[in-house]
């Protein structure tokens, strides 16, 4: 088993399984956020946020989620460093734009930027709501961030940017995860790629619409 985990395909399997886990998490997160669109009073969103603060979630699921992120990041760094080492001398001219997508070649950079976004995002919401625990109206906290004067516009822009970066990361990550598991062939690759783009656009659009809606209409 240890030789499996240290092999290139084993490491890729861990990347894809942790990635698929995070893909599911992103969907749950988006569904909870969408409560802000459907209920103007914010009660529905507050109920969702309250549910996410229950001890079973906080102490049961959150460590698993954090673990998923940490594993995904550690293996991304390990694999990327190895890949850098595999070509000690670079090409003077290399044209990859016709043979592969931009997002597939920049997964590490995209992932790194998404991580920076997540750090900022945790400071905005996770820390006051779940760690300091002094927020009574979660929906109000979210609205305040996006409507608070000129900074409201800056944060709206940053959240939209974060959503787009995540979208590009998912556009390659989603189908790639299935390929690494071995669940792909000539027919399924085309299908998975379509689902991948749909999911990426759905997630990016969803996370873009919510801050824009709050900034302009809340």
């Amino acid at each position: 088993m240890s030789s499996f985990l240290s092999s290139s395909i084993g490491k890729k399997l861990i990347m894809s399984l942790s990635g698929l886990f995070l893909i599911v998490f992103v969907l749950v997160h988006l569904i909870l956020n969408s409560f802000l669109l459907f209920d103007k009073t914010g009660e529905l969103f507050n109920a969702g946020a309250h549910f996410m603060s229950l001890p079973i979630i906080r102490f049961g699921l959150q460590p698993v989620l954090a673990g998923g992120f940490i594993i995904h990041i550690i293996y991304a760094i390990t694999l990327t460093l190895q890949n850098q080492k595999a070509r000690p001398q670079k090409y003077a001219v290399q044209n990859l734009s016709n043979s592969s997508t931009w997002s597939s070649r920049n997964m590490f950079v995209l992932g790194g930027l998404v991580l920076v976004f997540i750090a900022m995002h945790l400071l905005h919401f996770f820390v006051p709501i779940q760690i300091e625990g002094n927020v009574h109206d979660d929906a109000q906290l979210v609205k305040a961030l996006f409507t608070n004067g000129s900074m409201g516009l800056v944060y709206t822009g940053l959240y939209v940017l974060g959503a787009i970066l995540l979208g590009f990361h998912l556009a390659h990550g989603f189908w790639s995860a299935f390929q690494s598991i071995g669940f792909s062939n000539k027919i399924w690759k085309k299908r998975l790629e379509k689902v991948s783009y749909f999911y990426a656009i759905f997630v990016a659009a969803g996370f873009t619409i919510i801050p824009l809606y709050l900034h302009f209409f809340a």
Partner: protein
Amino acid sequence: MADKILKELTIKVWRQKNAKAKGKFESYKISDISTGTSFLEMLDILNEQLINDGIEPIAFDHDCREGICGMCSLFIDGRAHGPDDDITTCQLHMRKFEDGATITIEPWRAGAFPVIKDLIVDRTAFEKVLQSGGYISVNTGGVPDGNAIPISYDDAEEAMDAAACIGCGACVATCKNSSAMLFVSAKVSHLAKLPQGRVEATRRAKNMVAKMDELGFGNCTNTGACEVECPKGISIANIARLNREFLSATIKG
């Protein structure tokens, strides 16, 4: 239709005395090249010119010159086997280039493919991967014996598609990670799809992947650039199969 003549070309080429020497780019001018000339013939003409000028000719790999042996390599203007699809360098013709162009020629770049001289790289790493499991140990007889075992049309076709790999190394050269997954997956797949190859499938997948990792090829990130640049159009569906074969081999122990 008469071929056009390219009046002048600048060939910017990697020169390196031997494996240990530090290489550098040199530029040479070449004139009056017919567009019907193959790329390697153009290099032959350039080499004649270099010899006449008292310069050491450029060393490059080539053998059959009909696109089936996998010997010719060359990274031309940023692409493995140059600016054309589904071909080896010997099948590339000068009609793909404009008059007055500067053509950059580099050797395959990968830690596992060290440069021996100029544009020639050592692809022994592929041989080592094959020696670790890319074979069957039983005698399967001749053609009549092969036909005695019923194999479905789809399986036979898929096996043959994978067997089309000529081991040129364009996949490694193109991959941003210098990964050999397309090569290894083709070699695993063409045997995995046939009953004669199934017997040693578990051992083969494990050993070939272990050897590939040991030789310093990078990890696959599914960019798919390899299948686009592969002269034989090997699909990355084979890589998914290799992943499956390797995972099931691990579970079986």
